[in-house]
């Protein structure tokens, strides 16, 4: 009898043990500099796709990359999805609307502070502490800092996955492709050195493996 009671109690305790976190946190950076602003319609599609893939208790934030991106003010839309399906749908619709409004009214920024944006993403996702942390960078990865901005900072990307999306080739890349490959390699080494995983997706028709 005592044994049975012990087994029942242990089963109950085991069932009450905290489960490993299975939610996902996604932080997307949108490059709004120069001509890349014209690519934002594609970014909107990616955001909608991401929204459709996210579920209850997941976190999603979209921020712009401008002159100084290490700021909460650059976050365009953010949401931690509710536990209830009806609330999730409401949040998703609102999120999509905010992004849509932003894409329609955005002005291009003179500089591109990708590092600041990544730092902001790390801070945001660490604060939310989801089970899986993903940073999406929708940019040509060409960083162009304003004078006075210090960005030679190492990242802490342990447990993060960084995915570069739609890394377009610039006019100068066509002249010297090594420049394009060099940019990709630089970012890959920065991410992997910081303990993160690096991926590039340029074919936006094949987003199935995004999340």
């Amino acid at each position: 009898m005592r044994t049975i009671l012990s087994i029942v109690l242990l089963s109950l305790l085991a069932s009450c043990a905290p489960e490993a976190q299975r939610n996902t946190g996604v932080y997307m950076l949108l490059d709004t500099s120069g001509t890349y602003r014209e690519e934002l319609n594609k970014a909107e599609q990616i955001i909608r796709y991401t929204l459709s893939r996210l579920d209850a208790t997941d976190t999603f934030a979209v921020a712009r990359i401008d002159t100084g991106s290490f700021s909460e003010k650059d976050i365009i839309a953010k949401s931690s999805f509710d536990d209830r399906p009806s609330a999730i749908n409401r949040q998703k619709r609102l999120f999509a609307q905010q992004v849509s409004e932003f894409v329609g009214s955005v002005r291009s920024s003179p500089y591109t502070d990708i590092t600041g944006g990544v730092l902001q993403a790390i801070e945001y996702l660490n604060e939310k502490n989801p089970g899986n942390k993903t940073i999406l960078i929708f940019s040509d990865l060409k960083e162009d800092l304003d004078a006075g901005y210090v960005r030679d900072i190492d990242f802490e990307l342990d447990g993060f996955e960084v995915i570069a999306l739609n890394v377009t080739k610039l006019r100068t890349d066509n002249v010297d492709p090594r420049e394009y490959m060099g940019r990709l390699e630089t970012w890959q080494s920065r991410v992997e050195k910081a303990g993160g995983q690096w991926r590039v997706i340029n074919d936006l028709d094949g987003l199935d493996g995004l999340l």
Partner: protein
Amino acid sequence: MNFMLGITPWPVASALLWIILVISALYLARATAHKAIRAMAAALHQSFRSASRAVAKSERNLAARNRDVLLAAGREAKERIIEREFDRINDTVRKDLSNYSALHRALSESIDRIEKDHQQAVDVPPDPPGWVKAVEAVAKIETREGRGGIGSVLSDIHKSLVKAHKEAMQAYQVASGERHKLLRKMRPDWRKIQQTLTRVGKNVDSLLSRSVTIDRHMQEYEDIVRGHDRAVSALSSSSLVNFFISAFVLVVAIGGATINFSLIARPMAEMVGGTSLLGGYRTADIAALVIIMVEISMGLFLMESLRITRLFPVIGALPDKTRVRMVWITFTILFLLASVEAGLAYMREVLLHDELATSALLRGDDTATATTQYLWITTAAQMGLGFILPFALTFVAIPLETFVHSLRTVVGLIAISFLRVVSLLLRLLGSAFRYLGALVEQIYDLPLFVPLWLEERMTRNAAAESGLTKEARS
């Protein structure tokens, strides 16, 4: 090996020497070895036979127990059937024969009325004709008295006769009309009597047929009480049929419960959250399952309180007042749960459309968000299912009871068959070991064919010599 072949300078000679040595040793140990083999075989044979007997005994005990269980269940079922038949007879008698006095009075009144009418309708014999005497008087007039006035007399008689005949005919027609009227009045009474008697006849026939059924059931009941093999066989096959049918119905019920689950699991996430887990399972799923289980439990209690099933003797033994109260309480809870389910089914539809609309919006497909005018049909169907399924699941109690009762018998039958097979196998093994012992003895003797042949020759010679000596002596 080299050592064995090296005991003489010639390996062949060594091998032969070894063979002779081994055969000699085997020959010398033959009697003991045979004894050992026989003892071993006998021991194994006995062990397996004993085990087989023990298993067979267990099988017999189990069969006896199964038989008792079967008879007890059959007795109980038969008692219920007979009780129900008596209840029906009681109802018929109470319903139809309770107003027997009124029926009797109605019949008596009808008969009295008919009798009275019949008496009144008796045919009145017509008066004897008055003109006979007048004819006789005319006939008696002498010729000498003159018959001159006869013509006028006859004419008068004729007139009076015609008149009398007319009057008699009229009176007769009136009287006949009266009689016919009376007979016509009797017709509804006859019909009423006929109807009443037909009804009584039907009731009596029904009682007679019920009594025949009761006789049959009583005969079966007696067979069960006496433990006749025929009754056991009938109960066993009936139990198997019940088992398979109830199992089939339970599978159907599980299908219904699954549909019910899918109806309420999604909207449950709205109430308890969609991501929280309990023991590795979604809390919303567990909550939906609990609701269905509670509904089934309420259904069981309802059926039990209505005395349709007898799974819980405590409920059946409750006072009638408490039992009826329990019927209402369980029905109310069931009704509320069914209403909750209908609401959840509606919520499910709303959520589904909300989700579809959101997905369409995210896909950028504006046309998909348009709702059709026939949408209410699926919503109403889901709500209806959500409301009806809990009540439908209530009836699971009946096959469940049958399943539980027949399961005991079926498990018993399976166990008996298993034990029978085990017993047979053990007996076969026992026999196999006995014959194996004999076979091993023969195999042992196989390499010893030379010494055995010599032994046989020597024995035969010795026997022959002893025979000759006896003959010489004699």
